[in-house]
């Protein structure tokens, strides 16, 4: 991993155009489905009436039939005599059907379709436009024209085995954190076994869940524990997401799927269970399972929902629906509804976990796509796609997500359960963008809240221990890493990089500060925000640290480009380059941060700098539990602003287990505090008339 990996740019010349034409021509000897779709469309326009994109922006290019026609017309260029005559009369040469601009428009158009297959449900001819979309994407991929994010995700996945780029230590760190959280929430020790040979179940979800939906992962663990299922995760195979389905890159799809197959074989499990990730289940079950590895693989591929419902019916789960009092609605991910026939199982689980379940309409196989299907949910910028008049994020929020937004609003639900990493990200962003205040999570998040453990007997646990047997041996990773144990080890390169500024040559001016009033603070935390409010927060946090003579821990949260827990990261804001994370890179980024605050600290040396991932909530919780600080100071930029990947600043402040002070948003001496902070206002040195509780915004 020493060489820098750069995404290839693309140039379109005659050679590329010829390549596209040749690929389209090859359809005539290609799969039956494509041959059919080239011929049988009657152009009735029904797909346009049933497509969320087409309805969201009734524009010529969003018409599904017209999008498919990009390939169809090219395919038929020599087939249709009528068209030949017509184009001759119009003075056009059929060879000019495709030019450089048209190829660039292909990228735009084929990445506006989310491949949700809803059109197939309503097409009188049974045409599934997503098949043509994927063909278009596959051709683009062969030209190196796939959007940046998809390409880099595939590179990261090829190198680390998972889309998030978790190294083994980072993964074990996450597992350890989740186990701690589980025990705190449920009062019983709940283990997450990793790499256990001979377990009954190998569980694999989307690696994105570890970053943005930890509650879902905890839900799985709590479920397996309660149901007494002998299960394991694997670091080598911790991600079932498969971008090859979206990019049309068949070799990648197969290679990624092989990671799961290999792990299932190596761990000698009886069942490979895919979690809340619709396309992952579709790939594993219907594409990988039978096509790639033969019909008689020695393990069964199934979904967590089948296991969940089974345990529920057997009465193995004690659930308290009153713990989920908010109205909950369920979003059928297209790959579960229209491609895997998993629709009733999640509903059965949710009904058992919540007190108020509401259907959105339409639902099940006729549900509207979230607007982020086909990999789009992960695209924010223009992703290197030329000819794009809007960013992918705007496109998803304003056009593709329009139907979903209306649908969710109509239910009046406070929580949308969407068991798919793609849908979760899209709907979460959609709810924030339109300030609905609706929470978005998985089905197993609800289960994690509702499940009740009998703390005295521990009988549920006994089942799982009895089943696991004594012969279980830890898995040895292919990478030659140490055998895994369920106990997390502190990694060599921990996720938080701490740099202490011990500058003995500078006088400690804090001695000259005012007399210390309440010496009980152990530390002050500050989340960096680069805005005036961020500066005010910094000033306040520094004065508080000085006053109490405690350490000021500065947390720099990087979204991409600096996600240091990963092995590969974007390094520039335009996201065109990815580099491996090396000690040199860490040192360089650390220096940048230090220089930024160096002068402003005015010689205060008791300062820690910490780089964190965009995974704010957990990282801060971890550091709080470790005693790095008792109060967290954050610049209050605007009301209802986002915080981390999943929530608003206000929501975060209200729910955080430690004291939080928000400084701003209108002047440096206005403070918004949460309940914890309210109880220690004196120590926080906040004047009486200057504060109020964080209100209900967002």
């Amino acid at each position, binding site marked *: 991993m020493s060489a820098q990996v750069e995404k290839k740019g693309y140039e379109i010349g005659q050679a590329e155009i010829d390549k596209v034409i040749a690929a389209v021509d090859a359809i005539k000897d290609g799969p039956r489905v494509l041959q059919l779709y080239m*011929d049988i469309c009657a152009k009735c326009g029904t797909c346009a009436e049933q497509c969320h994109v087409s309805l969201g922006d009734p524009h010529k290019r969003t018409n599904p039939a017209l999008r498919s026609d990009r390939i169809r017309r090219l395919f038929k260029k020599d087939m249709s005599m009528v068209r030949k005559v017509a184009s001759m009369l119009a003075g056009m040469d059929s060879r000019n059907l495709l030019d450089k601009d048209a190829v660039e428009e292909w990228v735009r158009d084929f990445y506006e379709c989310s491949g949700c297959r809803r059109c197939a449900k309503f097409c009188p001819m049974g045409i599934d436009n997503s098949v043509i979309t994927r063909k278009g994407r596959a051709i683009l991929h062969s030209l190196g024209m796939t959007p940046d994010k998809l390409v880099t995700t595939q590179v990261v996945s090829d190198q680390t085995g998972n889309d998030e780029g978790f190294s083994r230590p980072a993964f074990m760190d996450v597992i350890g954190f989740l186990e701690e959280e589980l025990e705190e929430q449920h009062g019983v020790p709940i283990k997450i076994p990793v790499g256990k040979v001979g377990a009954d179940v190998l569980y694999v979800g989307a690696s994105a869940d570890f970053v943005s939906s930890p509650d879902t992962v905890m839900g799985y663990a709590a479920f397996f524990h309660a149901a007494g299922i002998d299960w394991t995760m694997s670091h080598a195979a911790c991600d079932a997401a498969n971008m090859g389905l979206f990019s049309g890159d068949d070799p990648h799809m197969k290679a990624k799927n092989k990671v799961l197959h290999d792990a299932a074989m190596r761990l000698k499990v009886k069942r490979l269970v895919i979690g809340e990730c619709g396309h992952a289940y579709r790939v594993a079950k219907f594409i990988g399972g039978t096509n790639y590895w033969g019909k008689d693989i020695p393990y069964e591929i199934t979904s967590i929902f089948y296991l969940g419902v089974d345990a529920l019916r057997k009465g193995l789960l004690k659930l308290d629906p009153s713990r989920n009092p908010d109205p909950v609605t369920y979003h059928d991910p297209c790959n579960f509804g229209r491609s895997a026939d998993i629709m009733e199982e999640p509903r059965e689980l949710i009904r058992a976990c919540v007190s108020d379940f509401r259907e959105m309409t339409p639902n099940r196989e006729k549900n509207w796509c979230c607007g982020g299907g086909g990999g789009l949910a992960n695209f924010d910028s223009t992703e290197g796609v030329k000819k794009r008049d809007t960013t992918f994020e705007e496109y998803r929020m304003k056009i593709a997500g329009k139907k979903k937004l209306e649908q969710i609003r109509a239910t009046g639900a406070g929580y949308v359960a969407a068991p798919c990493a793609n849908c979760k990200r899209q709907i979460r962003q959609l709810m924030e963008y339109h300030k609905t205040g609706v929470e978005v999570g998985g089905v197993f998040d609800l289960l994690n809240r509702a499940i009740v453990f009998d703390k005295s007997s521990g009988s549920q646990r006994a089942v799982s221990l009895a089943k696991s047997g004594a012969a279980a041996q830890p898995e040895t990773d292919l990478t030659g890493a140490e055998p895994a144990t369920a106990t997390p080890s502190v990694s060599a390169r921990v996720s938080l990089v701490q740099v202490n500024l011990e500058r003995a040559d500078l006088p400690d001016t804090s001695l000259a500060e005012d007399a210390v009033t309440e010496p009980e603070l152990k530390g002050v935390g500050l989340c960096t925000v680069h805005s005036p409010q961020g500066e005010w927060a910094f000033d306040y946090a520094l004065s508080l640290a000085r006053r109490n003579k405690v350490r000021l821990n500065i947390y720099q949260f990087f979204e991409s480009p600096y996600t240091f827990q990963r092995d590969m990261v974007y390094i520039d804001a335009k996201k065109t380059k990815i580099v491996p994370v090396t000690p040199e890179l860490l040192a360089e980024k650390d220096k940048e941060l230090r220089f930024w605050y160096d002068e402003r600290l005015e010689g205060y040396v008791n300062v820690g700098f910490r780089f964190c991932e965009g995974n704010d909530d957990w990282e801060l919780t971890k550091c709080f539990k470790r005693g790095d600080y008792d109060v967290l100071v954050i610049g209050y930029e605007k009301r209802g602003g986002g915080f981390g990947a999943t929530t608003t600043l206000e929501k975060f402040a209200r729910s955080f287990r430690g004291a939080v002070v928000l400084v701003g948003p209108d002047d440096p001496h206005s403070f918004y505090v949460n309940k914890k902070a309210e109880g220690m206002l004196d120590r926080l040195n906040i004047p009486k008339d200057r504060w109020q509780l964080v209100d209900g915004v967002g």
Partner: protein
Amino acid sequence: MSATTFVGVFLPYLTCVVFLAGIVYRIRKWNKAPVGKMTLTPAPASASEKWKQILKEVLVFRQLLDGNKPLWAGTWVFHAALLLILIGHSRVVTDFPRLWSMLGMSNANVDSMSNIVGGAAGVIILVMGIYLLFRRLTVQRVREISDSDDYVSLCLILAIIVTGDILRFGTHFDLNQTREYFAGLVTFQSVAVPSNPYFLLHFFLGQVLIMWIPFSKFLHIPGVFYSKSLLYQR
């Protein structure tokens, strides 16, 4: 070779050859092509269930009934009338005296039924055909995906309908003459070609349409079964 001889003697054989060869070529190609798993769920549980569902969907245009009611009304009636008319055309080629006697119908009965049902169907299909063309021209989402192929095929059908309606309502039409003519065609005997110019035009356009089926969007007729069969495979 006069136009009459071309349309009436030469073209029918060409039409048969082109149509049959084209369809056989297509179907064989579809049959040989690789098939991937792409089931659209929920899917029927067994093969017999699958074909039952496909037949049902094809007969009532189930998808359009769900997703596009105005089009459903227009196009279902259009196709149903077309089916009636095709059945009715069998009497142009030959007659079924045994069937009629089994049903207890006299020749006059059959003729008047044919007049009423066939006439109604001829009017209805014309109205629906015009509606479909009107829709293609005026509904923006349909207009933008329509190209020369779509207009030519619709206009061709309309021309066939119009000439057919002229034959039914406008001129006296001698069924015995056409029956003799078709019998001659089938047995490769030289028989006089009916000289009615509307018949010749109608027959010519009809043959053009039939020849065009294997090379155009009319492939949706056999294709819809293949396509749906892919979606509902288990």
